């Protein structure tokens, strides 16, 4: 599957990753335009996290290319990467300084405002709820003011209310022009928020398009579905997964 637009904010082509004899990614390509929300979905072991790790520069691909250097994209890992013994503000300030932002204090204040955590700025990260930790986690990913944000299962392990707050925050970013690529196991979440979904299975990208287009594909292949989740299952089953 080839990348399309040359003006895309993020373009990855022919990504291959092997772990020993096992091929985790088999020539996966991906593109995302400015302000676009792209969801990576697929069964466990499909290669979603590996693909995001390569896009973020944490792992090296054995083949293929990414048009952005690691520091040009914001990255939010699945597990909150915070120091529990530092306060929310100290965590933000530390990473702002490491990112080399011009005015760390102003940036921290802005992020606290953006995440709605200004009143928790002095709290230790270890004392935050899972949802708030994830919001700080995302805020740290945004400190470098990159226009591409990669999120690895951003709402995993959050309760519905916390999940809603995180998505409000992410959608707000996308509305301001940030390209968001995220992986998720929650297919309803992919259907609700993504402009496009990429279905990965066994290291291959099997589908790229809108959630509605996935349903149409399933119908064209003679399958039936009542929602996105059923369409997703039928799509994979039709391809032997």
């Amino acid at each position, binding site marked *: 599957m080839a990348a399309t637009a040359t003006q895309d904010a993020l373009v990855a082509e022919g990504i291959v990753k092997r772990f020993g004899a096992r091929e985790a990614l088999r020539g996966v390509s991906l593109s995302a335009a400015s302000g676009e929300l792209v969801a990576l979905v697929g069964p466990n072991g499909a290669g979603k996290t590996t693909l995001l790790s390569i896009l973020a520069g944490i792992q090296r691909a054995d083949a293929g290319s990414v048009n952005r250097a690691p520091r040009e994209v914001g*990255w939010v*890992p699945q597990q909150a990467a915070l120091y529990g013994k530092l306060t929310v503000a100290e965590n933000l300030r530390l990473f702002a300084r490491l990112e080399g932002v011009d005015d760390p204090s102003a940036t921290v204040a802005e992020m606290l405002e953006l995440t709605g955590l200004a009143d928790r700025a002095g709290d230790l990260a270890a004392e935050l709820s899972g949802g708030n930790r994830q919001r700080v986690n995302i805020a740290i990913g945004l400190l470098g003011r990159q226009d591409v944000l990669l999120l690895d299962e951003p709402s995993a392990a959050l309760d519905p209310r916390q999940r809603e707050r995180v998505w409000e925050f992410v959608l707000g970013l996308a509305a301001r022009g940030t390209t968001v690529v995220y992986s998720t196991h929650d297919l309803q979440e992919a259907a609700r928020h993504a402009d496009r979904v990429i279905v990965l299975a066994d290291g291959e990208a099997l589908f790229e398009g809108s959630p509605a287009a996935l349903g149409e594909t399933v119908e064209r292949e003679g399958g039936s579905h009542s929602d996105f989740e059923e369409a997703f299952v039928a799509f994979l089953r039709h391809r032997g997964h």
Partner: protein
Amino acid sequence: MRWLLLKDLRILRRSPGLVALLILYPIVLSVLIGFALSAGPDKPKVAFVSLVPPERGELELGNRKLDVSQYEGKLFAAIDPVPVDCEGKSPLQCRDAAIDKVESGEAIAALVIPEDFTDRLGGLQTLALSGPPTIEVFYNADDPVKAAYVEDTIKAELRDANLALTTKFTEIGLSYLDLIVSGGTVDVPVLEDIELLGLKRAEEIVKRARPDVPPAQQAELDRVIRFSELARENLDLSGPLLRSVREPIKIEQVALDGGSTSLSSFAVALAVAVSLMFITLLLAAGALALEREENAFARLVRGLVSRTGLLVEKAGLAAICSLVICLAMLVGLGLFVDLDWARAPLWIVALAVAALAFGALGVAVGAVTREVRAASLLCVMLSLPLVFLALVPSGSVAPAVYDATRAISALFPFRPTLDALDAALNDSGGLVGPLAHLGALFAGFGLLARLALRRFA
């Protein structure tokens, strides 16, 4: 890197329990090791009972009297006597009271001088068939180490006691020989003093009488004079001979390897080396593992900090902290142990280089572990054997085993750290060799840590 360093210091400041443990544990451990090595065994507490009645406390050797009761204190000066209350008790009860002291743990052993001790000792000069005096020793053998210690101590003390008695006997014997050679007065109890002529004066008398006897008998007198001369000359040699028999072998000790470090100074070097190792290893490994435990590692190394920079920061943090703590420890120990303060710059150099080597080892450990607890456990499991291996003395194990312990010790920073600190503190051996060794280990473990970080991250 500066911000990471400040972050780690802030985290440490907010972990007072961890910091206290990190500082106190190695210090207490090292002080205990140092104390055990330097203090050595004190005078052993021994319940000492003499059942010799006071009126039989004197031993007659020829015309001399030896007060054995006065000798007891001198003979067993190396023990810490535990008093045994024998007031109103029979000798057997008194003996049992001494044994009770051992069984209750109040004394490590009981030494019982039997009633007939003086008699048997005196019998040695008359070739009586009663046999030599026997001292009874009671001790608990429940602990083989303690049993060996008691046996060695008592044997050493009895050897000294035998030597002291032999010396006295020799002196008395020599005085009799002197009487035979030179003559003099012998005080014989009951009887009057006896005047002994002696070989020398007898020879003079014979020589003076010789010209007055017929020539045929002069030859006989010449044989007597010749015998007297020979006997006198040979008896004169008896003194040195008897003295040499008393202690036939003299020992002259020459240390071929190592310096003249006293045990207490070595204990200081050891205590500081152990503390330095624990603090640096635990801090370096723990700080690196914490980055992964907090999931921050991946975020950091994707452009914010290089992996090498991260290793340098963790090793540097651990080295600085342990250097400060161990310097403070040295200053504290210097109040109790005589240290050469003029060598303080060398202490700092030795500590700094050793801390860096341990820091490199610490980050290598931290690089292969994902949790602080696992890293700490690995550090402790690694550290203790290193200390024991480094302290195995040559000759105490088979040569091949000793070579193996030396080879293993050389692969880790503890032994060279001990050598460097010993050289810096006590001027024993060169400092450059251990420092170069530590430098090589720093580079080696740094490289290993870097490879491990790429492999396991």
